[in-house]
């Protein structure tokens, strides 16, 4: 079963290419405020996670997601 840390590690790998300011990525890094993903890029990011872990992520959980940690936690809950 996929754990919180697996989701987080995959997100780090996905964001390598997007991280223009060379931020040190952590659980508290914000997808929009820190990394600057547009709404479209957020959706592409979501799709890649869905494909990797063979899950569907309901859009309903996204309004509460700010940081990578928030997202990994939500996915962990979804999985459970």
């Amino acid at each position, binding site marked *: 079963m996929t754990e919180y840390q697996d989701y987080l590690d995959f997100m780090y790998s996905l964001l390598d290419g997007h991280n223009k300011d060379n931020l040190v990525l952590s659980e508290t890094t914000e997808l929009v405020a820190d990394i600057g993903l547009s709404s479209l890029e957020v959706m592409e990011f979501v799709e890649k996670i869905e494909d990797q872990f063979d899950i569907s992520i309901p859009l*309903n959980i996204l309004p509460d997601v700010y940081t990578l940690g928030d997202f990994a936690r939500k996915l962990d809950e979804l999985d459970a």
Partner: protein
Amino acid sequence: MLFEKFDYMARFQAELNAQDVIPFGAVTEKILSATEAIVNGRKVILAGTNNYLGLSFDPRCISAAQEAAGKWGVGTTGSRLANGTFLEHQELERELAAFHDVNHSIIFTTGFAATMGMCATLVGPGEVLLLDADSHASIYAGAQLSGAEIIRFKHNDPEDLARRLRRLGDRGKQTLIVVEGIYSMLGDTAPLQEIAAVKREYGGWLFIDEAHSMGVLGTHGRGAAEAAGVESEVDFIAGTFSKSLGATGGYCVSRHPELETIRYCIRSYIFTASSSPMMVACTRKALQILQSEPALRRQLQDNFNRLYKGLQSLGLPIGPSPSPVVAVALEDRTQAINCWNALMEAGVYVNLVVPPASPSTNFLLRNSVSAAHSSISVSACSFPAMAAPGVWPLKLV
């Protein structure tokens, strides 16, 4: 501050104003015909109006609206559930159901209210909406209101839809799959045979928004589901009066008798004034013309095929297949604005579409072709202005 979140839009509008461009909210000062008008002080060919059969200016539709205004007044001043159901509304519902060869139909005051209201009502908490990623804003708005779980599948990708239904397991039975016949931005058509096959295998309910395909596709002009031969597998079809039918309003038809009960639960149907009798009357006339004059549909197809081939031969990046929506995709905002401006100067009005309304980071110059476009105006829409100095060469996507 309440207004800070609008700063980005104020900056964009200021940028456009600085370039003396008004693509959003261009003002039509005079309508000359279904395809020509004076816009922002300039005589232009209307190539961005969704007036697919040219019926907005048909004398028979105009007369029908005038007669209805004389007979019923200009508005109903009430909801369908109160004083706002006139004989005209019931007749149009009967005629739309007959047109789609089903027994049940609801009309709405706008197309947005139809798709939003149906998506908001058909599913609720604990159930699932499976939306094509490129769905119209009205579908997303309804999804948000529904309280259902909202899952997107990749645009026009039946395999991705199948994967998601498989993940849902038994919950597939409580899932509404929402797709569009023709997608409004790039003019591409949904692969409905494959989507219907996925539904057969995994279950679910199928809702198709035929806003851009009704009056355009199918032997009888019923839309993409008719063209694909899958109408019997579709649960709900929504459409609009504001494209092929040239007026304003929307509808939903279904073979399920439960639609008659659902009617009383749709907030965008209950808590708004019903359509003006003028709109209903001219829509009824347009629906008759749509059915009795298939030549209009053939003319439309001929026109959009010619425009599509014309733009293709110029090497422009256009949608995947010919349809009444023919959009050119550009990467650069300034270039898109310059092209829009050059086209206006050449006497052609098209739609400028910017992200996030466009389905990617591209900017679109969107043509909407009409059966009423003369061959001259169709060729004129073939973007001659793009060859103007300073615009060409285009940075192609």
